[in-house]
């Protein structure tokens, strides 16, 4: 496991004194005990330790207490009590987030919504699912499958992550380009304000009266309201999906091919890229038969009716070959398609096998700059004396460079940090953003300083205050204060271990 960073290194204020903590705990337990069954309020250290971090294990903080409400009335009561005391509340789903969005507050209550795990209704005719916030992403698609429907956004942690967390992070997946993000697939969010008042954003219709608050609540990382129920759209399942695997002998040709596919008027269901070092690492791990001579490999997927897919695959092949693909293969069946994807989906664990440590970045750049950033990263490898494997959601321009290093060597650690910072800085300079899909949380607070001006950050604080005047809902996340503007975001993963090591990671 990663060595925990002291809380002071994160968003939290200086650690409270033991006396302050004891007094706060006493107040909270006194206030919450009458509201919850005894087993639903945890405050002894051994009970609260499992909640000290989310998927970003480098950042840890014990909460004052953990509330596990079982009914919406209990959620409301806990929120009201905490609001009256001025105690911070941090909502938490499955804890799979990669940016520390659910990291506890030292003097706050972590509100675990794990017990809200029921699918309330699947309406086949309306193609909607009404689910509680703690329902797992994949469970929605599984429940809808007999109706020929599914929930489109598919973050790679989908077997564990919950829809409430997806709403908080505006989660993506490999199919975003064609099917959209969480926001595009959610109709309604029900929940509570920080004061414990029930509230509904969006509706059963395609729009709601007034300002589009749903658009700002989705992706707000639990800082504007607490979500307890979500109504999502379901899509008809495509009849068939096929994937092209194309090799290129030059990074720039591969980058140009990505742009050319889009320019040809094709929106692939998935469009992913791996560079040569990444391909070597994953081939050694999954033995999928990847082309080890290629400088870059593209995976380009089409889905729809059999006729539609046949037509689109033909158009995709023409473009890829026209861009100088040195080798192409088209999946002939589902098993082969999954084999093509196996290496891409195992990029993270494969990196963990070839290096003691790696650091994953999550920036997004305009698609046309793919080759530029790859060439820049190659130069950075020389500059910092470290290797880097590259996997991209190429269709979205979302990069996941994995910098390989050994954390036991302080100099390598330092060079790795500079390398990561350089990638983020270059991404912003190329017209991109510091986080495409993992969220800001506590991890990328510093890099927000680079992307947004003080006035822009103050405007975000003002939005926060409009929903939460006292600032007690998941405080200290997403928006950095003026005081912290020094470093850029990164994810430090030691030896490929994540809290959910069995999950595919992108």
């Amino acid at each position, binding site marked *: 496991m990663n060595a925990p960073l002291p809380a002071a290194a994160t968003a939290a204020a200086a650690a409270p004194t033991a006396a302050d903590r004891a007094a706060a705990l006493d107040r909270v337990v006194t206030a919450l005990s009458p509201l919850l069954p005894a087993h639903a309020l945890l405050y002894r250290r051994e009970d609260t330790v499992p909640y000290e971090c989310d998927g970003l294990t480098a950042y840890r903080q014990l909460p004052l207490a953990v509330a596990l409400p079982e009914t919406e009335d209990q959620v409301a009561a806990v929120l009201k009590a905490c609001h009256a005391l001025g105690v911070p509340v941090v909502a938490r789903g499955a804890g799979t987030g990669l940016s520390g969005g659910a990291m506890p507050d030292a003097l706050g209550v972590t509100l675990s919504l794990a017990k809200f795990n029921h699918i309330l209704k699947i309406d086949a005719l309306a193609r909607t699912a009404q689910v509680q916030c703690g329902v797992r992403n994949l469970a929605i698609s599984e429940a809808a499958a007999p109706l020929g429907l599914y929930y489109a956004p598919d973050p790679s942690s989908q077997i564990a992550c919950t829809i409430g967390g997806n709403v908080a992070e505006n989660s993506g997946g490999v199919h*975003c380009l064609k099917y959209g993000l969480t926001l595009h697939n959610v109709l309604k969010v029900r929940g509570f*304000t920080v004061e414990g008042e*029930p509230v509904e954003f969006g509706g059963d219709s395609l729009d709601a009266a007034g*300002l589009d608050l749903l658009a700002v609540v989705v992706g707000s990382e639990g800082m504007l309201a607490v979500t307890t129920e979500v109504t999502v759209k379901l899509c008809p399942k*495509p009849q068939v999906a096929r994937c092209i695997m194309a090799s290129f002998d030059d990074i720039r040709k591969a980058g140009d091919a990505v742009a050319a596919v889009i320019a040809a008027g094709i929106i692939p269901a998935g469009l992913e890229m791996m560079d040569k070092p990444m391909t070597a690492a994953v081939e050694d791990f999954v033995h999928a038969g990847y082309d080890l001579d290629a400088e870059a490999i593209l995976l380009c997927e089409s889905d729809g*009716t059999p006729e*539609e897919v046949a037509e689109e695959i033909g158009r995709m092949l023409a473009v890829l070959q026209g861009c100088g693909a040195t080798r192409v293969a088209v999946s002939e069946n589902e098993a082969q398609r999954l084999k093509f994807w196996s290496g891409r989906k195992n990029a993270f664990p494969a990196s963990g096998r070839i290096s003691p440590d790696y650091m994953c970045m999550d920036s997004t750049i305009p698609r046309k700059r793919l080759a530029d950033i790859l060439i820049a990263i190659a130069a950075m490898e020389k500059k910092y004396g470290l290797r880097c494997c590259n996997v991209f959601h190429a269709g979205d321009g979302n990069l996941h460079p994995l910098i390989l290093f050994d954390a036991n060597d302080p100099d390598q650690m330092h060079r790795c940090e500079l390398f990561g910072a350089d990638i983020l800085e270059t991404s912003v300079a190329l017209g991109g953003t510091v986080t495409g899909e993992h969220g800001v949380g506590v991890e990328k607070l510093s890099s927000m300083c680079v992307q947004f001006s003080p006035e822009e950050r103050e405007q975000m604080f003002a939005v926060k205050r409009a929903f939460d005047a006292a600032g007690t809902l998941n405080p200290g996340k997403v928006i950095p204060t003026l005081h912290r503007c020094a470093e850029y975001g990164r994810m430090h993963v030691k030896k490929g271990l994540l809290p959910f090591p069995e999950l595919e990671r992108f």
Partner: protein
Amino acid sequence: MADAALDTLVERVRAARADKTALNIGGGHTKAFYGEAPQGAPLDVRPLAGISSYEPSELVVTVRAGTPLAELEAALAEQGQCLPFEPPRFAPGGRNDGTAPQGGTVGGMVAAGLSGPARAAVGGVRDYVLGATLLNGKAEVLSFGGQVMKNVAGYDVSRLLAGSMGVLGVLCEVSLKVLPLPVATETLRFEVDEAEALRRLNTWGGQPLPVNASAWWDGTLVVRLSGAAAAVRSAVDRLGGDPVDPALAAPFWTGLRDQSDEFFTKATAAVAAGATLWRLSVAQTAPPMALPGEHLVEWGGAQRWVVTTAAAARVREAAARAGGHATVFRGDKAGGALAPLSAPLQRIHRQLKTAFDPDRVFNPGRLYADL
């Protein structure tokens, strides 16, 4: 994006703030009829014009708010791309009789947040907003979002501006996701009653069919299929109905989009005679609205246009029962243009207004009287 046109706007806002006067943000003045009545001194955004960047392979266009919508759409069409949500276009003064040229701007399109026939299939205006530059009530020029497809850095303020009717600030520049024009399009026609049309539309919606738009009025259901040629062909075979000659279908969908077709022309006449044109946004499976008057069903059942003399309270109640809300689109707005908000939402609306525009400079009362 510092330039003279922007500097002028910033100065106007600074002065208005100091003088405590209101500004009425405007472009082509084609949608002044929509929402509550405009108030304040005109603030013309049209000098802030031009496409800032457009690269078709990025599927992103960044455009200044005062740019004519027609100019943007022409630039996209030249590259075989489009705004898939088909925003309606009106003539100055809100006319929709097809006799005057359209004059709307990109800023007005985003601020009004209106989408056309393809909305249910492809998403609405806000779904295509990737980033925006805003001039807020403190005369600060702020950018949110960006020009990339995936971006979770901070609150999604840019999408909040879609449909905000200018109450949060002046939209200066916006980045929009665009898409290729569909390869193939076919239109089918069915003679069915409203309940049967709703049943069919919802059943088709659950199948992998390329249904892109639909409209039911007066016993006729018209469905547009768009996508890959093979998919459209097989859907035509599967759905049956009567194929509509593309030479007739294209102007029909354009007329529906711009609200200049027969239903809306008649609606305009009825409104002049005292009726109200309502837009009901409801659950797409809701049964036909039990309201007197003419009904047009769009968006697979999710949008119902009703021309009626029924009392506002009755229309709003029907929409709420159907899982949605009702807006007075044209006609008497004495009962409010938009449906009233729940208490917590009303409070959040007021506080957001204060967060962006503390002195209530921009479009006061345009969305709700108290904003």
